[in-house]
């Protein structure tokens, strides 16, 4: 017999610190997009506000979407999860058929008024679906959990294959890492997890070998200064930027590396510009805000009303944090270079809106309160 819980969403119950933290991150991100993008916006579009204006619109859209999503009961979304997942996979398929190719990769769908990146959508739907399946793993029993694991693997696998065809390796990496964390959270025995992890690493190695440019990136990661005019360029420029910052930075807006040295400084390498302009303090502020976000989300997860919302909350925050860690890892030359945006900071409409959707879902979960007077059976 399942216990009957009466839950009610209440705006007054949502986690205020989590909300304030993500608002702070949004504001910080907008300021940095403006600062970082001004020179390239000026050089390319002859308008230093170009990217900033665009991002501001998306920020407003994202905030509105977040508030809307936070008001929708997560259980309603759960019901539609398979359909939403299926829809996102169709969109990935559509990308392969009708997508726009930029720099040799087909990742974008042109909607006429804007281009969107369905991979951002897929990241969330994969997390939602995985949380749904993993929440069914009730027993800490190897045999019983195997079917769930196979289903989860299939959920990631379908999305992964579609993404690899674009190709969009970094998105697959993020998904695999996030779902891996979710599996562990769901209580998967370590033995099975080790086997899966080994398989993932083996697959990753194969991919690195069959695509020579990935291998090259790995090599350049070991010593980026060896070929600083070629493969090492981006990372070297990023290190120059971080190194120039010192304790308190060159001052907001005073980055020199954003002047065409770092390509698209408002995107994947925005963290380096933060380090250059605001120094160690600025970088610490970014890490601190994400740390608070993680802490509050974990708190929400631990208080979550059911296993699904618990795993979903932790899965969504893991998705964010994994991207943060990988992005900073690339900027600081701690992991091999790969194109991963910094959530809340990197310019880009789709990623921001979907980031806000996931934050909205967490907010909704935080607002779910057990009603006191429901009798326990």
């Amino acid at each position: 017999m399942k216990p009957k819980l009466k839950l009610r969403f209440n705006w007054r119950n949502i986690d205020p610190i989590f909300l304030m933290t993500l608002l702070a991150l949004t504001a910080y991100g907008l300021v940095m997009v403006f600062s970082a993008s001004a020179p390239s916006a000026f050089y390319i579009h002859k308008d230093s506000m170009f990217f900033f204006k665009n991002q501001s619109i998306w920020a407003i859209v994202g905030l509105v979407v977040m508030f809307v999503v936070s008001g929708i009961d997560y259980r309603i979304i759960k019901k539609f999860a398979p359909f939403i997942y299926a829809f996102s996979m169709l969109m990935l398929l559509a990308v392969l058929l009708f997508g726009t190719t930029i720099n040799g990769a087909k990742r974008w769908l042109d909607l006429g008024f804007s281009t969107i990146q369905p991979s951002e959508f897929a990241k969330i739907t994969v997390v939602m679906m995985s949380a749904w399946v993993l929440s069914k793993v009730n027993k800490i029993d190897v045999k019983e959990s195997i079917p769930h694991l196979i289903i989860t693997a299939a959920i990631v696998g379908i999305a992964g294959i579609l993404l690899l065809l674009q190709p969009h390796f970094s998105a697959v990496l993020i998904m695999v890492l996030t779902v891996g964390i979710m599996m562990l959270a769901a209580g998967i025995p370590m033995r099975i997890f080790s086997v899966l992890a080994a398989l993932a690493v083996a697959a990753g190695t194969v991919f690195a070998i069959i695509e020579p440019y990935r291998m090259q990136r790995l090599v350049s990661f070991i010593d980026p200064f060896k070929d600083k005019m070629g493969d090492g360029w981006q990372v070297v420029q990023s290190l120059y930027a971080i190194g120039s910052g010192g304790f308190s930075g060159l001052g907001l807006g005073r980055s020199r590396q954003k002047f065409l040295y770092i390509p698209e400084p408002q995107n994947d390498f925005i963290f380096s510009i933060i380090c250059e302009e605001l120094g160690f303090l600025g970088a610490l502020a970014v890490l601190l805000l994400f740390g608070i976000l993680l802490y509050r989300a974990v708190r929400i997860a631990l208080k979550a009303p059911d296993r699904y919302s618990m795993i979903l909350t932790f899965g969504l925050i893991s998705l964010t944090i994994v991207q943060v860690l990988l992005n900073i890892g690339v900027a600081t030359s701690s992991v091999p270079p790969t194109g991963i945006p910094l959530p809340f900071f990197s310019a880009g409409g789709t990623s921001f809106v979907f980031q806000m959707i996931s934050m909205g879902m967490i907010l909704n979960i935080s607002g779910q309160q057990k009603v006191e007077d429901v009798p326990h059976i």
Partner: protein
Amino acid sequence: MKKNSMLKTKKRILWLSGILLVCFAFFVVRISIIQFVDGEWLSKEAIEQQTRDRMINAKRGTIYDRNGKQLAVSADVETVSISPITVRSDGDPVTCAEKLSEILGLEKESIMEKIQMNTSYVLIKRKVEKEQADAIRAAELTGVYLDADTKRYYPYNNIASHIIGFTGADNQGLLGIEQVYDNVLKGQYGRIVTARNADGTEMPYKYDRYYTPEDGSDITLTIDVSIQHFLEKHLEQALTDLQLGNGAAGIIMDVKTGEILAMATKPDFNLNEPFEITDISVKRSIDAMTDAEEKSKATNAFLNKLWRNKAVIDNYEPGSTFKIITSAMALEENVVSLQDGFTCTGSYKVANETIGCWKHAGHGTLDLTGALMNSCNPAFMQIGARIGQTTFYNYYKGFGFTEKTGIELYGETHGQFYPEGSFNEVELATASFGQGPTVTPLQMITAISAVANDGKLLKPHLIKNITDSSGTVIQSFDTTEVRQVVSAQTSQIMRGLMEAVVSEGTGNKAQLEGFRIGGKTGTSEKLPRGSQKYVASFAGIAPANDPQVAILLLLDEPPVGNHMGGTIASPLAAKILDDVLRYLDIEPELPGDQMSEGDAQVPAVSGMELSEARQVISQNGLRCVVEGNGNVVTAQVPNPGVVIARNGTVIVYTGDARPSNSVEVPNVVGKSFEEAKSILETAKFQFHAVGIENTTQNAIAQSQSVAAGEFATIGSEITVQFSYQNQTQPE
């Protein structure tokens, strides 16, 4: 069961969050390392790529002679460079290349090639004159930059080339004072630092820093350009007239201060073109070489030899000039008195070796004065023996021959002598008359000056003072006394002896009417003995009673047969001192009647009535020869101001008569003094006799400066060399 799995999930979430937090901590550390440990070099490299650093050369200081005449000056020029990326993106490559090639005279294709380069800075041309730079500015070419630079000019070209030195492309001193005092002259360069983006164009906001250049200091030399000119003029003449095999060197020094008034090495070079090979035969043979390496080797070897300052670098055996030093030692040590007699039988036996005198018949008995006047080797061997090895060596050292003088030039050497206490009697004997020890010309003149200057050995120097760009004296160089070598009394005697050598002895060709010159000639054979290569030299002082200047001349490898210091170095010294002493306004001292051939200056008589001209000319102690039948003087030879021998002829032209340029020179060789004089004066030449001692009797003309049958300008001076019949000329 559900509760159980919820609990497990919560636990898992907690430790997974822990892992994520550890990752955060890792990045805090990682960023700290990048910013605080590697930050310094990373930001340095970043700034390097972000900035365009342009140097502004400081103005190099001027080098002046002692009277403020500019010997080396810097003028503003500009350096032209381009930013190829900017030219291609924002400018017009074709126009740019065309304009630059037109203004700068460069090949259009090579500029075009530079524009295609993938960089943000390419040098086009250095040291561009202001006019051309202005033309480039006027053309308003995008991506073309002009930076200030300076260029060195040497207004006197070849004068004092070895002393002044020159600078290279980066304005760095490469020789002489320019090199030695490079740090003083060059100042501190300034910089303009401009921010630039990855494309090489300048950033839209200010990141400019300007560091002001600090101009170099000026240097005033002790050199007097006029004296330098006199020295060089005569040395140059000697170089070609005598066909010297290995060049010549000369130094004139202020006896009382140690200041070098002139120092020259021949052949020399033009400071404005120091790398140019002007010697046609050398140039031809180098041009004929096909191997590039061989060619550059030969060029370098030639230039390095040309740039070598013989006056401070060359070691030579001083020969008889050293007898002055030996005499001073002997007098100072009281081992010889002026009354002591020395016997010369034509040779002298030391230990088991017999060493001859230049006069095989022997000089008979001579006192010290006679020994020096006649440059008698046996007498000096005896004097040397009296001085003794240890004392001799101590004086050799005392006169400064064992150490560099410390003059402000690179490459200076010092004399070589047998090691202290390890030379034998024979070596002492030869050293006494200047064979064995070596000296540099600078050391020799310094030692002679010490002998003349009350025994005070002064440090020779080339720099009077250093002033900063505002004219304030930063450093001045005064007279430095190294040590007292001999007493003032000895010095006084020596001055008399040196004068005697010139007035009556072997140095007589250095005689100068009206002035008291002291000195000694020397001839030494280069090693190995028997090489038939000689060095002829003259070391002297003037005026002998109150020395102002010392002079040292070194003629390297004169042709055999005309290699004696007495015949070639002494007359040269006389000519130079003549110019120098007059220039220095040193009053002639000897009474006029002793001037058998005193000089006179030719007055200006053109435009005068003939009678008036005659009167003026005779008043100047000259004779007048009239050409033409007019009443008014229309022209004259020689020109006004020219100094000729007293009783010389001034030809005045009247009416239609015009000076014809040249006439045939008659032969006077073999003639007596009177005959030669009359023949040359009749032919309208100035007669100049050399080699005449006290009397003209028995003097026979040996040679004449312009050979018979050749043509020479009317009124020009023909020098006739006389010698006495039945008597060998002493060395």
